[in-house]
């Protein structure tokens, strides 16, 4: 009896040793069959229990069960050990494979300038106003103090409709529409599409975008205009950009100016972009002409105001060094993806 007990305990020790060193699940299974399988070591030993006396059997049965449980526990441990080793033995993921992309679309460079300009001017208290693309001569020219025989009214320069209306040549008519309907103070910007009868080339397009600004209040001056455009230039193109005013002529402002930004390419030293002048001509501005105030019923003795415009394409082209305006309307996705 004692011999059988020893044999059982030896089998347990052997099984534990074998399972501890099993390299894989197949090895564990092999052990299981060797010790617990129908023809295995433990059933073989247990069959010998029949030769024992009835008194001895329960004790030996208890021992055999303990051994069986011990082996089973060793099998479980081995399996758990092997399961825990997955990362060591199975293949790693190839993290260099391409991700499944969920990208944002690309905002058109013209929209980028418009959105940025709108955001900057909103911070200064401006509100966006809008008007129709199909305008009347009154809003596009007359109310803006444009003489009847001014060349810009020519059919060579402006698109007309058979009913006498026209495609607005500037966003300035929105100024008039707003002032007609609103008492001062007024702070608006008007981004929008304009049209001129220009033969298309690298710098001309029959339609283009402008942003118009208007600020009317008591004692608005050229100094305010300069302040506002300086904030705009710095926010849009960087804090190093300088602003320059030059006298100019527009029918709807007096004094009229043109404003330049120092060249962002060469920092004002002179390069091909700024034609060696160090300055980039941006657009026109000025103090609202008293005749324009008269057209909308504002008293120029009470109110003063400034207006400014800018060409969106021009700024976008400067900003991204785009040489041909037509690229902006071609929508080649390889182009769009660059911005």
């Amino acid at each position, binding site marked *: 009896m004692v011999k059988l007990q020893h044999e059982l305990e030896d089998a347990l020790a052997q099984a534990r040793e074998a399972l501890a060193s099993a390299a894989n699940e197949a090895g564990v299974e092999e052990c299981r069959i060797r010790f617990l399988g129908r023809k295995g070591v433990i059933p073989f030993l247990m069959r010998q229990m029949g030769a024992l006396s009835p008194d001895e059997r329960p004790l030996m049965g208890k021992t055999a069960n303990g051994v069986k449980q011990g082996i089973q526990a060793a099998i479980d441990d081995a399996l758990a050990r092997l399961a825990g080793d997955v990362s060591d033995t199975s293949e790693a993921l190839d993290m260099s494979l391409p991700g499944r992309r969920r*990208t944002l679309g690309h905002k058109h460079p013209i929209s980028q300038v418009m959105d940025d300009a*709108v955001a900057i001017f909103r911070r200064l208290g401006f509100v966006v106003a809008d008007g129709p*693309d199909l305008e009347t001569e009154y809003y596009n020219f007359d109310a803006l103090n444009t003489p009847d025989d001014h060349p810009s009214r020519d059919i060579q320069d402006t698109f007309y409709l058979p009913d006498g209306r026209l495609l607005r040549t500037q966003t300035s008519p929105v100024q008039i529409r707003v002032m007609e309907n609103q008492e001062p103070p007024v702070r608006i910007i008007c981004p929008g599409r304009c049209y001129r009868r220009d033969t298309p080339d690298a710098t001309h397009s029959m339609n283009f975008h402008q942003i118009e600004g208007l600020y009317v209040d008591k004692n*608005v*001056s050229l100094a305010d205009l300069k302040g506002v455009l300086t904030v705009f230039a710095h926010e849009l193109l960087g804090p190093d950009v300088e602003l320059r005013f030059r*006298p*100019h002529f527009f029918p709807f402002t007096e004094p009229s100016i043109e404003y330049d930004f120092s060249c962002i390419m060469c920092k004002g030293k002179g390069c091909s972009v700024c034609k060696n002048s160090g300055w980039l001509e941006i657009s026109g501005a000025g103090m609202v002409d008293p005749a324009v105030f008269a057209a909308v019923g504002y008293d120029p003795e009470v109110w003063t105001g400034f207006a400014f415009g800018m060409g969106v394409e021009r700024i976008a082209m400067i900003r991204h060094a785009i040489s041909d305006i037509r690229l902006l*309307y071609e*929508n080649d996705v*390889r182009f769009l993806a660059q911005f």
Partner: protein
Amino acid sequence: MKTSQKWLSNYVDVPWSPAELADRLTLAGLEVEGIEDVGAVPEGIVVAEILERRPHPGADKLSLCDVSLGDEPFQVVCGAPNCDAGARVPLAPVGVTIGDFKIKKAKLRGEVSYGMLCSERELGLSEDHEGLMILPDDAPVGESLLEYLGSDTVIDWEVTPNRPDWLSHIGIAREIAALTGKPDSLRLPPVAVTRTDATAVDSVVSVEVLDPDLCPRYTARVIRNVTIKPSPQWMQEALLAVGLRPINNVVDITNYVLIECGQPLHAFDLELLSGSKIIVRRATDGEKLMTLDGEEHELTSQNLLIADAERGVALAGVMGGENTEIAETTTDVLLESAAFNPTNIRATAKSLGISTDSSYRFERGVDIEMTDYASQRAAALICELADGELMDGVIDVYATPYEPHRVSCRTSQVERLLGVPVAADAIAGYLEALGLTVTSKSETDVEVSIPPYRLDLTREADLIEEVARLYGLNNIPGQPAPACVGGPMDSDCYYPVEAARAQLLGLGMDEGMTYSLLGLETATRGTGVAADEVVKLANPLSSEAACMRPSVLPGIIQTVGHNIAHGNHDLELFEIARVVAHSADLPEERNQVGMVLTGRPHSERFGAEKQQAYDVYDMKGVLEGLLEERRLVGVACAPAEHPAFEKGASAAFTCEGKTLAVFGEVNASLTADMRLKFPLFVALVELDAIFEAPSSERVYSSLPPFPAVDRDISLVAGKDLPNQQILDTIWGQKQKLLESVELFDIYEDEGAVGAGKRSLAYTLTYRDPKKTLTDERVNQAHGKIRKTLAKQLPIELR
């Protein structure tokens, strides 16, 4: 307007280099279009004398010249035909660089050459390369050619239409004098004449002005016994420098004075003037005139004509007539100097399609007080350079002489508009510098009288602009505008557009922009817009840009075409566009969004996933995302026909009967010329309608604390039974416990479900917000739904 630096220095001392002058005047409002150095020969070129010419022993076309710079002669090999002994010519000595070419001591066919004799072309003076440039016999041998010839700088100015006084050298000299603060330093050229003819001019010719409104002043002088010949070198050079072609002395003088004074002049051959008479009148309708350029014009009574006793002899203010042109045979000249009505001249020039230096100035307005001075100046020059004799006196028809008007300016208003205080004395100083006369001045006001060359100054604001110019716009400090809250957000029409754009970009689509103007056929194709609804231009530039786009569709189809042609087959694009059409039930202008999906959403991946292409449900999903964000109420999607799309492959989202969007697979006829690799899907979204459609408030509803129970329904139905009808039938029973219905499978297999049929499977989720559901209650609700489906629809439950 071009000025020559040499020419300008006759009237004012310019204390600045040409570049500095350009900068100064730019900041005074005279923009520079270009600066060009003319007549500047390369440095190092010297005047040489050819002492002897010998044939080159080894080359027929070359000569050996002994050349002297005043001392020891040396040999130069020369290929020019005119390198004759005795000629003074330009020499580029050894070591000098012309262009990129450095002159070296060289052997030419065995003969040593110490330098190169130059043609005008080699010196950059002209295109002449026939032979050497031959210098005058008194050219200083050995001296620098650059110093001998001198050089000039020509500046091309862009003059704004309000400043016709800048269209002359004297006008620009006046501005320079004002900018230097020395208005008195302006020098007008003398007009004294030595050669005269005592006969009174009005005894020989007469002038009659029938339309003084169109011709407020007309002066005539007569110069007799002129000799027509080329004008002197200095005048020819001056004219060439500003881009005018020399013709003969008398014509050159009228052009010279035009550029000098800004007053257009015309010289008639007096002998050819019938009746020795000038009549200024309107042309009769149909009257013909042949102008100097050889063009015959048919005139109307809108055109002002200079006529003699019989016929028209000049188109007033625009161009002279051929019939009285100055020719070599001319001996007596009638010199016209006049002022014409700007509007009338502009109309004539425009209607006849002629623009001349003369009409350009009259259209903008000439200085009426300059008329007589310019005439005297030209007469003096004709006497001097054409050996003429000036007849006594002038005929001057000038009904209403110029009366200067007065304008005043308040210091308070100057400060209000400019943002800086400027004292009355300073204001007066600036205005006087410009040639205005201060008529009264106090601490608060300055009044000035306006000279005839500044008719643009009529109001206080005009004077303030002048003050700003001379004060220096860049001396005005910038000040940030005082803080202010803009108007209410819903008054700002840009927010919705920005929001839509941000959302579409967020959905991964690139933004495009296309042209508004299209050809009629392109503009209407596939849009369903009739040709008579399209807004057409009265004066298009071309038939391809003749009308406004009535839909965003044509532009995006063109965009797709461009990209496909360039091999870009994977496209996710949108455009937000303002479209225009005359339609019965839509506003004339509205905002539309066009969207494009074609190609592969995951071309960056591999295997089957890479090959997977967009289908119509991708487009539907984009629209659902767009609409979902707006929380619209009552949106429905149903099949809808549209000419842009293939039959049976398009649908529309509507809300309260209004179309929000149509989408589908693009009709093959629109893409016939494209090599599409994948099906193309487009959506046309009515942006304004979406923003106007009713949307639900966003109110919190508590999250359910009790678990849900799912039950599936599987059924077989004809393929033509839409999913939506099944969903509507399920929801139509208004089972309170039903929370959601989700389609999870569609299966088509003739063997399993029968021909023309498909199997659909749904998961129905049940939940009671107040307590845990029992199987019994779920079974009851689910059973009812199954029963009703089987009863109401031609289906077979499985």
